[in-house]
């Protein structure tokens, strides 16, 4: 029965422990660490790419109509995130980046949500003359009968 | 009048047995009251003898029909009651009485109870006659009576599995033992022409042992060893104890094997005075150690409550024998003390097994479980018995075992013999194994999960409980007052065991020994002291004070401590933890408590299992072979 670790144990007893004094001494993480997400709403263009690539569906977008335009709120739920960094990679405007903050400890789940909102101004509306309006109305009424489904399927038209 | 008490007590047992045959067949009440009455009479009579014999140190001799010795030759049949006889007689009558009371309820579901009580009282009469007798041939007759009564009682529940088989084995091995005794008696009679123990003793002491007497002695020794179930003769005991009704198992282990021990002590100390020879000491101690160790290791691998207790019974008899074989004052006192304790705690444990059988209908350890909630009193009683047999202080087993260890180790120091040091080690180890084994019983019978068949178990009726409680209290008392027990029971008995001259003189008339040139010296002095003697009372008081203090402090700290919750039914919080699994789907189970032990000692256990084959031919062979070895040893070395 060999006991190879006696020497090791005794040596360690008189040397410095390798424990990091974590809560007292904060620790820097290495490069490339993907921590808590930082969102720069001023860069976002509301393309929705991040939502499409997010596997855990941690990103939600809410759109409110306001006076100045649509108020778009991006909400990144860190509690549901896998930190794959796909959203950041796909963001053409670099409005999403993953910081080095790793300590995400909360008692309330809502505190884990990273939000950012910006206002997407509505495009300036063309002023139409009454005649033009009447023309459009007539055209619409003529169309109504034959192409209701078409209209439904193409709401942008 | 008091002179007649010994014979009256024997007669009352036999008379009771005949009366039950005549009147007990029809009426249950008459039968039961006869049984209790005629087992209580000897108890009273024998207790009356305590004062003159144990305390005042008299020796009663009684010649049947007043056939006193003629010109120094004993021609009549004598009873002789000295302290040793009375000591064993007390165990016998106590056991008989308690077993009779226990039987009333316990056996009430069987039929043919008149035959049961007949045999039962006859068995008691046989054992009582044996220990009170002063006549070698009379002892043989009593041995025959008790053997055949035992055989019949073993087979009493003949509907049970294996009881007829056990009875047959008992019959064969018991008959071989009886035959040895008879042959021994014949040989001795041929040499000395008398059957009185006292006279044989005196004549052998003056004339010395011849090869013929040694041969006779060896046969007698082996015969009584068969009755005490020491090692080569033991396998039948396990079967018999297991299949007999529990009240009878209690009687077997409480007094029938004590009868064998009594016979051996009487023979080696008194009649043949062989204990001064170291060869004799060696063979008794070796047999004792073997009995101890094999008994307890076999007990470890048993799956039946009563069979396990039976092997423990064998093992504890090994302690008694070892202690007796040490031939020191402390040794024989320890041995007798242990015999007393063994009667109490083993009787108690067998009664507990009986109670369990009465409530559940099984003694299979694998089928029992969780009875502590159903039978709380039996559990406490069983725990007292288990602690006693394991020798935990302050129960009685501790005291006697301690005397035995000290005797063995002192003997080792005295003779400078390493052998006796090993004996001490074996003794202590066996004690630990006993504890381990009883933990297994406790765990698998009383604690653990409630087994499927045990839901309807109920506490046994009062008439079964109070004999158990009485014995439990006696267990505690004999543990708490060892000084008292020593002074009034054990020391007089051990003094009587070695006081040959007094015995001879009481029987044959004063000065008989001196006439033959026997010196009146006693072989041993009974002065001993226990090194590091402790006071169990002080210890117990301490224990109680501490426990009370702890309870109070825990109670006071209630404000600051979390609440102790009582279980709420159907709340998963109070379920047993099965790793989150529902209990019915759990695969966890500790089936074999001694797996690690058995795995490491598997060769030993395999050998032992092959030895305990259950084949009666084998057992007869062990008996004869064992006897042959004993005879050979004695002729060579004595």
């Amino acid at each position, binding site marked *: 029965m060999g006991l190879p670790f006696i020497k090791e144990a005794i040596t360690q007893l008189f040397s410095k422990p390798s424990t990091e004094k974590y809560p007292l001494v904060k620790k820097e993480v290495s490069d490339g660490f993907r921590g808590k997400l930082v969102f720069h709403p001023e860069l976002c263009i509301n393309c929705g790419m991040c939502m499409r690539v997010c596997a855990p569906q941690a990103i939600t977008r809410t759109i409110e109509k306001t006076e100045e335009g649509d108020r778009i709120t991006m909400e990144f739920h860190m509690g549901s*995130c896998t930190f794959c960094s796909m959203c950041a990679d796909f963001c053409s405007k670099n409005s999403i980046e993953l910081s080095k903050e*790793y300590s995400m*400890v909360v008692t309330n789940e809502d505190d884990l949500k990273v939000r950012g909102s910006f206002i997407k101004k509505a495009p300036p509306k063309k002023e139409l003359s009454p005649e033009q309006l009447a023309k459009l109305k007539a055209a619409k009424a003529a169309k109504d009968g034959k192409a209701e489904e078409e209209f439904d399927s193409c709401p942008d038209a | 009048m008091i002179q007649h008490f010994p014979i009256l007590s024997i007669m009352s047992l036999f008379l009771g047995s005949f009366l039950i045959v005549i009147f007990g067949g029809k009426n249950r009440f008459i039968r039961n009251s006869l049984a209790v009455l005629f087992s209580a009479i000897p108890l009273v009579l024998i207790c009356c003898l305590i004062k003159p014999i144990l305390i005042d140190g008299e020796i009663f001799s009684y010649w049947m029909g007043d056939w006193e010795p003629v010109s120094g030759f004993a021609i009549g049949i004598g009873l002789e009651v000295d302290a040793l006889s009375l000591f064993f007689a007390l165990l016998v009558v106590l056991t008989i009485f308690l077993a009779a009371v226990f039987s009333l309820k316990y056996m009430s579901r069987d039929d043919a109870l008149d035959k049961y009580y007949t045999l039962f009282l006859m068995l008691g009469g046989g054992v009582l006659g044996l220990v009170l007798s002063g006549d070698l041939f009379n002892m043989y007759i009593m041995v025959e009576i008790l053997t055949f009564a035992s055989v019949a009682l073993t087979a009493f529940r003949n509907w049970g599995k294996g009881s007829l088989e056990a009875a047959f084995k008992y019959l064969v091995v018991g008959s071989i033992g009886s035959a040895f005794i008879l042959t021994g008696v014949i040989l001795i009679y041929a040499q000395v022409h008398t059957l009185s123990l006292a006279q044989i003793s005196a004549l052998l002491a003056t004339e010395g042992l011849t090869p013929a007497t040694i041969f006779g002695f060896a046969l007698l020794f082996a015969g009584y060893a068969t009755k005490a179930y020491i090692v080569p003769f033991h396998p039948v005991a396990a079967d018999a104890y297991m299949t007999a009704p529990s009240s009878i198992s209690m009687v077997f282990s409480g007094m029938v094997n004590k009868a064998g021990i009594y016979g051996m002590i009487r023979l080696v100390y008194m009649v043949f005075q062989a204990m001064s020879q170291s060869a004799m000491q060696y063979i008794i101690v070796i047999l004792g150690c073997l009995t101890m160790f094999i008994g307890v290791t076999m007990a470890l691998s048993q799956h039946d409550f009563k069979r396990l207790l039976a092997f423990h019974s064998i093992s504890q008899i090994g302690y008694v024998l070892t202690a007796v074989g040490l031939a020191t004052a402390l040794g024989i006192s320890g041995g007798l003390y242990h015999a007393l304790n063994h009667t109490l705690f083993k009787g108690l444990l067998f009664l507990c097994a009986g109670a369990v059988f009465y409530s559940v209908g099984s003694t299979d350890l694998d089928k029992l479980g969780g009875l502590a909630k159903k039978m709380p009193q039996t559990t406490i009683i069983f725990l007292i018995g288990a602690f006693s047999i394991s020798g935990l202080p302050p129960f009685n087993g501790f005291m006697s075992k301690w005397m035995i260890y000290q005797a063995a180790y002192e003997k080792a120091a005295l003779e400078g013999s390493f052998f006796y040091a090993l004996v001490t080690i074996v003794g202590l180890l066996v004690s630990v194994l006993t504890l381990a084994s009883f933990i297994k019983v406790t765990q698998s019978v009383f604690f653990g999960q409630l087994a499927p068949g045990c839901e309807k178990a109920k506490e046994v009726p009062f008439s079964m409980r109070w004999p158990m409680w009485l014995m439990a209290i006696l267990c505690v008392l004999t543990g708490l007052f060892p000084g008292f027990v020593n002074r009034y029971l054990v020391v007089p008995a051990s003094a009587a065991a070695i006081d040959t001259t007094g015995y001879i003189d009481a029987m044959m008339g004063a000065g008989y020994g001196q006439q033959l040139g026997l010196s009146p010296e006693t072989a041993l002095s009974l002065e001993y002291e226990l090194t590091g003697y402790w006071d169990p009372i002080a210890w117990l008081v301490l224990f109680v004070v501490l426990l009370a203090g702890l309870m109070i402090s825990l109670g006071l700290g209630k404000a*600051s401590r979390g609440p102790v919750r009582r279980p709420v039914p159907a709340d998963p919080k109070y*379920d047993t933890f099965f790793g989150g699994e529902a209990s019915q789907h759990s695969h966890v189970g500790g089936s074999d408590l001694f797996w690690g032990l058995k795995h490491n000692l598997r060769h030993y256990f395999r050998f032992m299992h092959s030895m305990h084959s259950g084949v009666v031919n084998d057992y007869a062979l062990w008996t004869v072979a064992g006897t042959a070895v004993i005879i050979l040893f004695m002729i060579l070395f004595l």
Partner: protein
Amino acid sequence: MFKKIIDNSMAKSPWIYHINTGSCNGCDIELVSVITPRYDAERMGFKLTGTPRHADIVVVSGPVTSQSKERLVRTLAQVPEPRVIVSLGSCPRPCNVFKGSYSVEGPLDKFCEVDVSVAGCTPKPEAIIDGLALAAQILKEKRRQK
């Protein structure tokens, strides 16, 4: 005073019981790494126990799968009060990538009150230490309020 000692000890000796309810093992490994010499949570009194009866902090990792739901509920019930439940990693509460799976019964909040959640997939050991320290403080508060 005695009460105060007990309250203070509460925060200084939290024992952890760890339940894996279908986790990918990532969080489990990181939790174990917390008791390695490098992070050594024992210096703050944390200790992994083997049974819920001894636990103060229950750490749950993994989305609650339908297989593990029953076991989780049963085990959580067996933890004595006061207790704190920590959800470790992204899985237990919003179910992470397993959201909406036929075999996931989560979130954990359906079955018990979750006190602390540590985000990360998997959280760094430092984050786990932070979370456990917070849980210990909550434990003390719970004891005090009682």
